[in-house]
């Protein structure tokens, strides 16, 4: 199983392993059916909202309000999706959100990797104090920043710009912390050897540290892209111009305007969810393992 590779259990066959296997088979046959029933019921509860969203999104308005509820529309239609693209300016929302999320994610990951490397692999005076001072901002709820940051943004003339969305969130403490943890798994000898061979510090960071950090890198990129894509409160406050809305704010506004048209609303929700879910399913093994890898040590 994957988790054994992860923990680093030696793979050679020994009697203990065989015994372990036998115990496992016994344990499995006992309670597994019960486990599957409970988990299956739970899984249905987890996906029902998504299924109902998709189902509603293909129904004409009359069918969304008919009783009894039907999973499959009698007259399926894609007109709801066309409506959303027209009325919510969906193409524009996608572009804006992708643009902001990609740039933010690149900054987040690059700065965090760099700082994680510096705090994890160098020894210098004041290192720990600086690290913990930066880290301490992690606990401060965003609501504390909301008002002063907004007023500062207005003051410097960034209100209603992407600069205001991106700049205050270039650096991020969580990824920095995770990279610093990850750096302990990279042998310092490797860095020293490169130095002795005459490699410059930036070369070492870009060509040795970054490639070696792939596991942490991909997981954090996926998470940060998702968080940046789903961000809501700050864009809601800063962006006033409809043309510059990101998808969450666009969807919220759209829902407010067209609430009674259930099919259209659900089509909008589907379109907001789909890109992230596709991305997530494509890299899901990475992510779920990655939560364990970077998030917590059992």
């Amino acid at each position: 199983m994957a988790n054994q590779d992860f923990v680093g259990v030696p793979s050679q066959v020994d009697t203990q392993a065989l015994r372990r296997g036998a115990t496992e088979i016994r344990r499995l046959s006992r309670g597994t059916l019960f486990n599957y029933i409970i988990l299956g019921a739970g899984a249905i509860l987890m996906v029902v909202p998504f299924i109902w969203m998709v189902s509603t999104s293909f129904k004409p308005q009359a069918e969304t309000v008919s009783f009894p509820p039907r999973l499959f529309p009698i007259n399926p239609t894609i007109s709801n999706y066309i409506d959303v693209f027209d009325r919510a300016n969906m193409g524009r929302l996608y572009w804006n959100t992708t643009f902001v999320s990609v740039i933010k994610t690149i900054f987040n990951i690059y700065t965090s990797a760099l700082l994680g490397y510096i705090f994890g692999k160098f020894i210098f005076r004041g290192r720990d104090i600086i690290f913990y001072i930066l880290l301490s901002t992690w606990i401060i709820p965003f609501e504390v920043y909301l008002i002063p940051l907004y007023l500062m943004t207005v003051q410097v003339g960034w209100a209603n710009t992407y600069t205001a969305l991106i700049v205050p969130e270039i650096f991020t403490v969580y990824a920095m912390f995770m990279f610093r943890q990850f750096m302990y798994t990279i042998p310092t000898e490797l860095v020293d050897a490169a130095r002795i061979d005459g490699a410059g510090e930036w070369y070492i960071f870009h060509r040795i540290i970054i490639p070696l950090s792939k596991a942490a890198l991909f997981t954090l990129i996926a998470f940060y892209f998702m968080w940046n894509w789903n961000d809501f409160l700050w864009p809601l406050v800063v962006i006033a111009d409809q043309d510059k809305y990101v998808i969450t704010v666009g969807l919220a506004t759209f829902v407010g305007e067209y609430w009674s048209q259930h099919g259209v609303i659900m089509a909008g929700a589907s379109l907001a969810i789909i890109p992230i879910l596709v991305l997530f399913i494509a890299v899901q093994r990475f992510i779920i393992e990655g939560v364990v890898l970077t998030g917590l040590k059992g």
Partner: protein
Amino acid sequence: MIQTIVQKLTGRGSTLRAAEHRFIIIALVPTIIFYAIVKFYPIFFSFFISLHEWSLFGNVSPFVGLDNYALLAKDSLFPKVMWNTMYRTFAGTFLGALFALIVALILNPIKRGSILLRLIYFLPVMTSVIASATIWKWMLQTRFGLLNQLLLMLGIAPVPWLQSTTWAMPSVIAMGIWAGLGFTVIIYLAGLRGIPRDYYESAEIDGANSLQLALKITLPLLKPVVSFVLITGVIGGFSGGFQAIYMMTGGGPLDSTRVLALHIYDYAFERLFMGQAASMSFVLFAIVLVLTLVQFKLQRVDWEL
């Protein structure tokens, strides 16, 4: 070439140390300036705002000292907001932690299909809360929502989930548990992996049944993870809930789902009482700070992960 050999012989030469220093300085100086401007200055600025009657459009923002804080104590709405916040935080955190624990415990021994199941439970975590709250609002709609239609098929009268002061908060909490469950499950699964198999084997040889295994081995050894989940859940809960509540109820009906995060946003950006809102954000800050210190105290050993 000669230089390389010399450096190899002498180890870290002085030129190298200088290069390292430059590297560190180039990276750290902008970082520190950034944090000073964007992370530390705003806290003082926010406190400064909270001492004024600060409105976005007013040219004058008179200094009012601690009046904004005194107003919170006198206000009849603020205690209600705090009560709602605590209700949502504690009910959501404890129920969520419990359900996630059950799922993790029965998911852990499963081999076949476990990846698919983990994926399914994790789907809501990846979904934008704005979108999921929209779906929930539709499913909980009084006349045409899926839940009431299903209840009607069972002969149960429709419940106005989001329009009732009794049911609105539980509905919002349920949505929050659904949205966050998968993440907590993954954390528990990581914790369960850390428990050595040998413990179970020896207990089984001694004739322990699965319930005994769960109660005597799994739960005690999982205690640090459970308390981590609970404490971080409570800390996050106090400042959380904004997106779901903004979409599902807007704080209503009759302020029954108005939580602190929504209240701060509403005062600052809808009613434009920025000074008052800043004082509330400081109350939130104080709560979170105290809870975090409690967490450090409780988990001193686990903190350096």
